């Protein structure tokens, strides 16, 4: 008898194509260093940081290492490779296929999305015009954040989110930074969209407003992450506007967005709820009380828009589910020991 084997976390988070995209986005000398790292080290890296005049540093699992000239991880700074201005300038060009003009809008926000859905933070000298950032020049630092899709990380959560065979609870994911809320939301979207056979859930139309290109990781409009067969993505679109556009255009049953919080988002969400669309979103925060303090999210919580709140932490690694709360009943639904 054949059984379907789930890919291990390593394979799921470092498919060959994704790894390729990071190598392609840096100059040849740095490519060699990264390619020289042993696979088990590579798998743990969350960020590659290139800063002009500083050592090449990688972060992962709450730890950081220098990368030496011959491509080894080291805790000793003396052998570390020192990044040059040429490295960062060249890397930026390679990241956008030598087409800076095509990423102007993204650059203005301070980050770009490269192939494979990885996000690259960019710092340098901001050029302003009428008080608004027009572009960033003299790039001094790049932070390549490895996009990790952990297929199945939402498995233990799904029974608490689903409502019956074809509905879901409006859900708010509350999490401090770097605790895996985007990764969790992405997997929830995938499962809602594809359906969950084990729970007899058939799958529904999901609309995603991906303002920061993090959820779907669109590169030139094509999602680089697996986000489900019934998912429509509005890439790089402001949330409030995007929610309205999706409701009018794509008749979604669920709308998912990351990091809600601007005043105009409130109206859009209320409009979506009135239209009978379900909502899943995330917010920065430590617990439900913390989230209640936030102007927009607090109001939505008090109005009873959200039925479930999921609180994350990093206690047992990123994506640890601390609590799932039934917001209406103010009751903690137990049965969770971690993700």
């Amino acid at each position, binding site marked *: 008898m054949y059984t379907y084997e789930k890919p291990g976390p390593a394979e799921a988070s470092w498919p060959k194509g994704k790894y390729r995209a990071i190598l392609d986005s840096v100059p040849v000398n740095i490519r060699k260093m990264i390619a020289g790292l042993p696979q088990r080290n590579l798998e743990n890296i969350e960020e590659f940081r290139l800063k002009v005049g500083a050592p090449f540093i990688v972060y992962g699992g709450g730890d950081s290492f220098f990368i030496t000239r011959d491509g080894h991880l080291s805790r000793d700074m003396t052998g570390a490779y020192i990044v040059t201005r040429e490295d960062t300038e*060249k890397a930026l060009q390679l990241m956008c*296929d*030598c*087409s*800076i*003009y095509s990423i102007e809008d993204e650059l203005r926000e301070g980050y770009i999305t490269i192939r494979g859905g990885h996000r690259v933070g960019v710092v340098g000298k901001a050029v302003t015009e009428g008080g608004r950032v027009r572009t960033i020049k003299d790039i001094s630092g790049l932070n390549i954040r490895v996009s990790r899709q952990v297929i199945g990380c939402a498995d233990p959560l799904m029974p608490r989110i689903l409502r019956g065979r074809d509905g879901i609870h409006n859900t708010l994911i509350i999490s401090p930074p770097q605790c895996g809320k985007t990764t969790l939301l992405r997997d929830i979207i995938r499962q809602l969209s594809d359906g969950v056979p084990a729970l007899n859930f058939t799958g529904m139309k999901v609309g995603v407003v991906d303002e920061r290109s993090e959820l779907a990781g669109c590169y*030139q409009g094509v999602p680089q992450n697996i986000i489900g067969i019934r998912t429509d993505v509005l890439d790089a679109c402001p949330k409030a506007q995007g929610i309205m556009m999706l409701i009018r255009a794509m008749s979604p049953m669920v709308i998912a967005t990351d990091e809600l919080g601007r005043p105009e988002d409130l109206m859009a969400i209320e409009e979506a709820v009135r239209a009978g669309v379900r909502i899943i979103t995330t917010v920065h925060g430590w617990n439900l009380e913390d989230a209640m303090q936030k102007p927009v999210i607090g109001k939505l919580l008090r109005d009873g828009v959200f039925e479930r709140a999921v609180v994350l932490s990093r206690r047992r690694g990123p994506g640890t589910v601390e609590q799932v709360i039934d917001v209406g009943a103010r009751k903690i639904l137990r049965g969770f020991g971690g993700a």
Partner: protein
Amino acid sequence: MMVKLIGCIVIIACSTSGGYLLASGYTKRIRELRAFQHALQCLESEILFTLTPLPQAVKKIAARLDKPIDRFFAFFGQVLEQRAGHTAEEAWDMAIGKARGFLCLDREDLDIIRGFGKNLGSTDRANQEKCFRLVKYQLQEQLVKAEEKRNKNEKLCKNLGFLLGAALVILLV
């Protein structure tokens, strides 16, 4: 006598066709300058209006261009698509190095085109627009110069070829 006559004819034919070949270089240069203007016009609209990333934009226009300029852009596009770590400027220079063998453009033309490559893709939209404006202006100037040069030299080359051959024949006979 017969051999001598044939020899003379061969010498004159060779020098005349040499002259014509030299003369045709002037016309070819003009044609290539025009083709470059057209190609850059296409590239400009891809970059400024549809914001197409460079590799796709170049591939698209290379398919619509005439020979021999299409080879230049096809090669440039290939280097970009390989993602071997070359920036647009480097790829552009590589393409010029390759094109030197089959294009009739002179050194000045190539320098202008190379100068344009330094900024291609590496700046924002407003700056790209300026670069396109500059290179179009420069190429137009080159075109005027090339036409003058052709008018002056084309006939001369053709005549000179024949006359040189004739002179050689007279000397040898």
